[in-house]
């Protein structure tokens, strides 16, 4: 019963990811794609959590944490790129 629920949730998440993917592909603006990517990352965090439950293992908890950090960094980097055109600025004073 519990497994069925988990699988159902996984299916929902997968649909959500596919939705996010559609947005990432379709656009139309860059910001849409970045947001979609962020969404996909968060969905993946949830997905990995549920898969861990399903497999009854704690081996993927690091992956969840890492993905959280990476999703944040990635979103910030992309945002900065959209705004400034570069991610790491060179020092101006030299």
């Amino acid at each position, binding site marked *: 019963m519990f497994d069925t629920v988990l699988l159902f949730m996984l299916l929902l998440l997968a649909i959500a990811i596919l939705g996010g993917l559609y947005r990432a592909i379709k656009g139309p603006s860059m910001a849409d794609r*970045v947001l979609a990517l962020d969404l996909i990352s968060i969905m993946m965090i949830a997905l990995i959590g549920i898969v861990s439950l399903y497999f009854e293992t704690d081996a993927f908890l*690091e*992956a969840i944490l890492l993905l959280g950090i990476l999703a944040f960094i990635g979103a910030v980097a992309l945002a900065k*790129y959209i705004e400034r055109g570069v991610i790491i600025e060179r020092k101006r004073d030299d």
Partner: protein
Amino acid sequence: MSWLHIFILLPLVFAIIVPFLYKKIPKVHTGWFVLFVPLSIFVYLLTFLPMIAGGETAMYILPWIPGFNIDISFYVDGLGLVFGLIISGIGTLVVLYSIYYLSKGREALHNFYVYLMMFMTAMLGVVFSDNLIVLYLFWELTSISSFLLIAYWYARRQSRYGAQKAMLITIFGGFAMLAAVIMLGIMGDTFSIRELIAQGGQLVQHPLFMPAMILILIGAFTKSAQFPFHIWLPDAMEAPTPISAYLHSATMVKAGIYLVARFTPFFGGTMEWFWIVTGIGLLTLFWGSLLAVKQRDLKALLAFSTVSQLGLIMSLLGMGSAALYYGEGELAHLHSMAVLAAVFHLVNHATFKGSLFMVVGIVDHETGTRDLRKLGGLMSIMPISFTIALIGSLSMAGLPPFNGFLSKELFFTGTLNAADLDIFRMETYGFLIPVIAWVASVFTFIYSIILVFKTFFGNYQPERLEKEAHEAPWGMLVPPAILALLVVVIFFVPNVLGEYVLEPMMASILPTLAGQFDFHIEAWHGFVPELFMTIALVVIGIILYLTLRKWIGLYNNVPRALTITNAYNSGLKGMESISRKITDAHMTGFSRAYLRYIFLIFVLIVGAHLFLLDGFSLETANVANINMFEIILSLALVGSAAMVVITRSRLTAVISVGVLGYIVALFFVVLRAPDLALTQLAIETVTVALFLVCFYHLPSLRKKEDGDGVNGLNLVIASLVGMTVTAVSLSANGHRLFPAISDYYLDAYELAGAANMVNAILADFRALDTLLEIFVLCIAGLGVYALVKVRLARREKNEDQ
């Protein structure tokens, strides 16, 4: 190490000392020091003569690479010894001649004598070697030293051209010979010529017999300037005249003759050998004599006459091989006369051609030209040279009382005998042999007469000569005079030569008849057809010479495009341009083209392998069940991959690559690989970030003007590669022959104290790979740093300027 080894290698060792002598003792002409080397070899080799004449042979073995049956084994028999005597004897005379021919101050004498000494060892090695590999080694050494000697005056363009031509052609033949040597080694399981000949009879049916024969003959024909490989010899006349006299008349060009003679006991007696050797020999004889007549340069005339005479000797060896067909008996003896003529003419040719070359060198040296149109009337100015030239030329033409007459008579005997052969389908074409031989002899007579008459008779034209003509110093005259003396002496006492020299040589070429030769060379043997042939050729020859002006113009009608030299030149050019075209066609400089080749060849090899060898199989026994989320993830994976390919915006492509990587990470999660998933997530993020870092500097993807921008060929290749890889993976999955070794690593905790099996493998079981991967990352980091820094430094430098 025997005395023979020491004497054969003596010139090579002496070549090391020559430059020191040249530098340290500049007052004395270096040639004087060199002179004793060939002289001592000659004297040493003379000591073998009584033994050889007694029918004995000797073998000296020095192990070199015993594991491969390669020994420096020298074998002394009649054939080798006579060649050795010619090489060292004429070598002595040539060195003496060169002392006076080459100026001490102006010429690079050390080079000259070093090359000459190299050549002498090489040539002696060729004729004495019993081991085929060693024979080939010395063979190539003759090619190389000849190349060096032809290009002795390397500042001249023609010298370099001649050297290159000789090199290409003789090395080509050398390689053919090497192939033949290997084949012979396979056939007889030995590299020793002696052992090969001993088992010759059984090897006739061997499938490699014919290829080995043809390749050996290519080697011999290129070296001996036989048709159509004769073209290098006239161009080799750019060498200094002593070299032309030595290499290109007496020794090196006879190496091919030697080879044919040496292998006659092995290959002889077969129809193919008879026809190829005789046919090519006659063709060369005819062609060479025909072309010699039209030459205006004395050395070119002599070069073509050498070609022609070598063809004569070659054809005689071919005709003589018929004796081996009969083995023993009267007919064998009859045809062995051709071999006698061959070896006799070989000796005679070495004498008179050497002297002729030296005389031509004298004329060149004392008048400054070798052009027949400028020369004339030198008889009274250079009487000694004239006498020598007259003796040489008349001997070459085949007149009494010179040795050429005897061998020419024997030659006609040989051709008449060969025409009567009733084997090898000779009854149909046999009559051609004496006819061709006779016509060629007429031309030989004409050019021999031209050589003497145009140079020494007629009007003296001092205004057309570069120097005032005068007689040469005695040192230059002595060597040709000795040879000319030999020419006459041999005519009067041919049977002494026959007993000591010719019989042992024939015994080497026709071993089945050894010890039974019964011949007596006579200048006069009654009114036989040969005599009438000689008389007729003299009469016709004189008539043709007197009417020379009327028909010499016929030569000009031959189109240049039909000459073999032209074919050689355009062949070289053609090869160059074709290979350039081929290279240009496929080496486009675009990596996409190279990738296409790589992928296509991959598909061809792997795909064809799968297809042709029935390698494809789909095993479903060990396939796991497919989950729902695996299906969904796969769909997402395909979607994002398609996006990368389809999109027109680079940013979309980068993001799609990111998505792709994340989905792969999810696969790792689903397939229970937490470490991989972690790494994949981190690396994917960094990669996408890096793409974005360089993104700003990149141009946007160019839109194709025409159509939808799909390259059909690339699409096909990509699909084929994808399908091939898929097919291979599926087949590989079905073909698991052995159980996996991963069970061993399951005990990682006990073996390495690690709960994490992946990490245990990375850092313990297979830590070496990890170390090297660390190196890879290290190098990549340093590389990036270096690239960025160097680039920045350059930009700043540019800004400063």
